[in-house]
């Protein structure tokens, strides 16, 4: 069991992502996520004081497209992929609570 992440943290994150995990899976992922954090800690230990922070590996900025309409997809085709639809819309189970 890792010290870097607790079972409670894993349960919390799983809940936020609406993932239902078994006890065994919680153990498994707590270990795996702990390993990932351990690796991050190794990197954190390095002295990177004189290295520019990078948000992306490629030195690219301002990748933009023209504001021109491109045909959208066929609605019936899209709706057919969903478990249920009604009146041209996706039909989903009731959601408790307000939008974030």
């Amino acid at each position, binding site marked *: 069991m890792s010290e870097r992440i607790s079972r409670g943290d894993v349960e919390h994150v799983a809940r936020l992502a609406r993932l239902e995990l078994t006890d065994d899976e919680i153990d498994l992922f707590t270990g795996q996520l702990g390993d990932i954090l351990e690796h991050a800690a190794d990197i954190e230990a390095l002295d990177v004081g004189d290295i520019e922070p990078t948000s*992306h590996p490629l030195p690219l900025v301002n*990748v933009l497209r023209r504001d021109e*309409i491109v045909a959208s997809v066929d609605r019936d085709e899209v709706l057919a992929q969903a478990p249920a639809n009604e009146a*041209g819309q996706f039909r989903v189970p009731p*959601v*408790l*609570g307000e939008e*974030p």
Partner: protein
Amino acid sequence: MTDFVAPASTDDTPIEPTLPGGWELVVGLEVHVELDTATKLFCGCANQFGSEPNTNVCPTCLGLPGSLPVMNETAVALAMRLGRALGCDVNRSVMARKNYFYLDMPKDFQTTQYDQPTNSDGKIELGDGFVVGIERAHIEEDTGKSTHVGGGGRINDAEYSLVDYNRAGVPLVEIVSRPDVRTIEHAKAYVEELRGILLATGVSDARMEEGSMRVDANVSVRPHGSDELRTRCEIKNINSVRSLGRAIDYEARRHIDLWTNAGAPDQETRHWDEEGGRTTSGRSKEDADDYRYFQEPDLVPLEPSSEEIAAIDASMPMLPAARRAALLAASDADADAIGILVERGQDELAMVAIDSGADGDKVVTRLVNDLAVDDWSNVTAESFTALIQMESAGDLSATQAKQVLGDLIEKGGDPAALAAARGFEAMDTGELESLVDQLIADHPDEWSRFSRGDDGDRKKMQGFFTGQIMKATQGQADGKAVAQLLAQKSA
């Protein structure tokens, strides 16, 4: 649970700086505006209000696996333009993912900006000179629209929900103010002023009723004179400027009651219930914000050059505050009336007419009163100016000028031709004089009360004679000329 229910807000009674019991109101505003682009933020689907549900969708805005976002250049340009109009610094910015699970975002995250927003540190100056600081104005995508079916449309009782993703991915800018506002009037004025700036810059059509401008208010109270910031609640679902006033009023009273009788309010999101005139608690506590923001790996940073920013500044139109100041300097008219004209975009008409020599106060009054219509696109600065000149020269009476303006609004054109079509011609003085003489002869009693009576009589009888002449000429006589004639004849 100490959920106090304050009496419902019934009107927009302003709470002025000091609230009952020595409390002070503290408000910050978060305004979302949809940018006036042809397409969405990250894909080529149309950014269009009112389309058939789910007809403006594609793999990218539906969040289908393998799709990739590409930033819309017009959205970035409009966001930076708004930033400069708000006096913000335009920064190098980075997109981020705001992760949450909800039906309105098929990707399960909203692409937005977090710690490196495009615009920061600006301000809006209101009509009375009060300044509200702008913390940031960042780019993000809009979410889809859900309709809750069954249970009276209430979300917690719904049987199921329907989702339309046409709006998902529409480009937004969220403008976050500093908590500088202390009165309801300033909160409303801030939203009106921001709306004016959005329209002047062409950044958004800013229609609250269509949702292209949405206002959330962060409300708290504190003892008057203190500089602490107490627990705030974020009020959502405010659909008009009037509702904004009512919602803040209700929420402030709720906070005062809690602090006085029960203790700190919970920091939470609350929903404005327009019909009930109150706010209600939104999410439960275990759903507290936990968005796990991280940088969006599929989009690269935005880095405007100083030349780009200079070009935006150079193309900036005059903003409402400057337009008000210019019209005030030119006309010396009432500040509220000037504010109305600038809001309607009719200040240009006034400026042109005044420049051509018309009386400023008269021009402003005429526009405020007689051009209070939604569609005045047929009225040009030239035609309005020509009309005002005809009126000033006495070619048209005030009543006739009003009628010709009505024709201008309806069909446009040359006011001289419109006046001629109505048969309005300057009545020559001789004709008017013989009419006046006839009236005097027909009404000797009234005339003696006019010419020999006290001031009250004189005034009353002037009204009588003017009314008779207007009736006889069907409003064509020039009121000023009539008054002059009456005065001459009684002297």
